[in-house]
């Protein structure tokens, strides 16, 4: 059970990274044109 002392903080920190990445994405306007971004990946001339 001692392994929990390591594993739980690790899982929280990893989750925290995910949350931080999401907040960064929201703040840098990456959710402003979801449809456009989905379509842009198919453009081959950029």
């Amino acid at each position, binding site marked *: 059970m001692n392994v929990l002392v390591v594993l739980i903080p690790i899982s929280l920190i990893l*989750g925290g990274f995910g949350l931080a990445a999401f907040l960064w994405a929201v703040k840098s306007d990456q959710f402003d044109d979801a*449809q456009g971004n989905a379509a842009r990946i198919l453009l081959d001339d950029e």
Partner: protein
Amino acid sequence: MTAACPACIGATGPAEFAASNAPDAMQFSLPTIHCTACIGKIERGLASQNGVQSVRVNLSLKRLTITGPVQSDAIISAVKSLGFEIYPLDAATLANTTDKAGRNLLIRMAVAGFAMMNVMLLSVAVWSGASDATRDFFHLISAAIALPTVAYSAQPFFQNALSALRKGGLNMDVPISLAIILAAGMSLFETLNGGEHAYFDAAVSLTFFLLIGRYLDHQTRSAARSAAKELTALESHTADRIRNGVAQTVQLSEVAVDDIIAVPAGTRVPVDGVLLSEAALMDRSFLTGESAAVHLNQGSEIQAGEVNLAGPLQIRATAVGEDTTLRRMAELVELAESGRNGYTALADRAAAIYAPAVHLLALVAFLAWWVIGGDVRHALNIAIAVLIITCPCALGLAVPAVTTAAISRLFNAGFLVKHATALERLAEVNYVVFDKTGTLTKPAVHVPENLTKTERAVALGLAQVSHHPMSRALVEQLQTQSPAPLEDITEVVGQGVQGRYLGQEVQLGRGQWLGASFSGLGMRIGDASPIQFEAPETLRTGVREALSELCLPAEVVTGDATEPAQSFAKRIGLKITANARPTDKLERISALEAEGKRVLMVGDGLNDTAALASAHASIAPALALEASRSASDVVILKDNFTALPMVLRVAKATQDLSKQNFAIAAAYNMIAIPIALAGAATPLAAALAMSISSITVLLNSQRMRSVK
């Protein structure tokens, strides 16, 4: 870029940011774009234009942003030649479009989602048999994650509940807040006392699921708001004022009575005034519904909203701002609209039944278990289980999930839904009233088949310079031709256009002016006898298909004269009322509503505005006047009516799916409530009931995609 010191980096950063948002960024609306190819075509096509620095298409908003020293007219013609509809937007009106509230909700949702995943992870360990010290330890960690999350993420619910309670009422947020706070508080107490059950996962996932619903709801509302803003931006808010012989573009609010205003050809008159130029030809169809252009002489009164069809003219302002005819009409609209605000949305009606019922149920459970069992703590636990398990999240998602799907479905088909309850009202419609001029019909000109190539080229050359609706229609007919090179082109107000072609005098205009025997539109080249163009009003594309598919009784009410109205009625096979003034239209709608009919009004002119606002639901085309668009629930962005019946089908489907969702939520409750009342609901059961019911509701809403 290199900076000499760290402070300089800090100093240049914001300045650069401001530059990229400078007012020279132009915005356009592109209602017909729908796919990757459209983005590529427009961005590639415009990037090669002179002066364009950056070009970006936003597919979600169907909007185009351009920066660089380039004229907006050049952009408009370039995009039109690529085959897309384009409308310029006023950047100043759109300036503050960043949606702070939406972002705020999204961040709260992300935090709740993060907390839910971690708490669930710990809860799964507890459910699968962790006991004693391990269980208490896991509960404590859950508490450390869940309590701050609830305090931050659930704030929107707490605020709404508080404001409802202050007014002495109950809304959906009161039971939600109560469930979240009680679940978190009771679980903390249980954890500290080594209790077996903790509901941290329930408190956090409740917050998460409900925030999804709240975010979807916000998205639909803000889409409506930004659509309204976009439409306002289409209208010009400036006027060309002439002082000491110098023309200056000023804000409409700065124009004073007795100012001299210049009105360029083809634009709308910004204020009420008196004509100073010798003569003018005005299109009043927006104000009166009459399709024929009106010929005015010096000294005649001109009302704001009329369109100048001939050469540039000058007026002296007699009424500005709130006093103009246009504004007074808008006030009439606001008055008519206040009646509509009394409409209670389906979700609110559900909340009115749900909120008191669930409180009562929880209270009864608490009292009964307290009296019978004598254990306050156990009784409170059961009451909380009841509050959590009654699935407020499925109920909270039921309507927003469906409306969001429906609105994006309609947006892709070229319809803007502006009002939150519009779809519900549209679903109840059982009678349709149409306006004629500008809505069902548009002016068209029939080009005789035996016209020579030269004659066609001359006609196009002449028609191109005029803003008269007939000339516009003629240009549309002759699109494939190249115009003849003409000299000395002048527009004779109220008569037509004349010029010189290879030394011959050429004219396009009224029959009498050409010296012909007919009175309609004609053309004369040199001394040849005049050629007549027949000008029947044509139906807008898709009107016939739409009417045959509607399957609802319909009629036409128009401000046009009796004779053209009757011939139109024969062609289309609908009952028609001619010579209707704005008040007549309003009365007709009221009369129909008094008969118990739910009327859908479709119209574009200012003369329809009051009727649009008072009808049960209303639809206006994108080119309608600002007042008409703001009075209507749905705006058609395309120049095509074929999809009109689809709006009604989507509205009906929205209502059906919302009701189905409520039924699903109710069914879950019927199973879950007895279990909770019996005291058999564990945190695991609560979590399962909540997740499954929410996901079922969300999936059911996606069936909207299959509505055709």
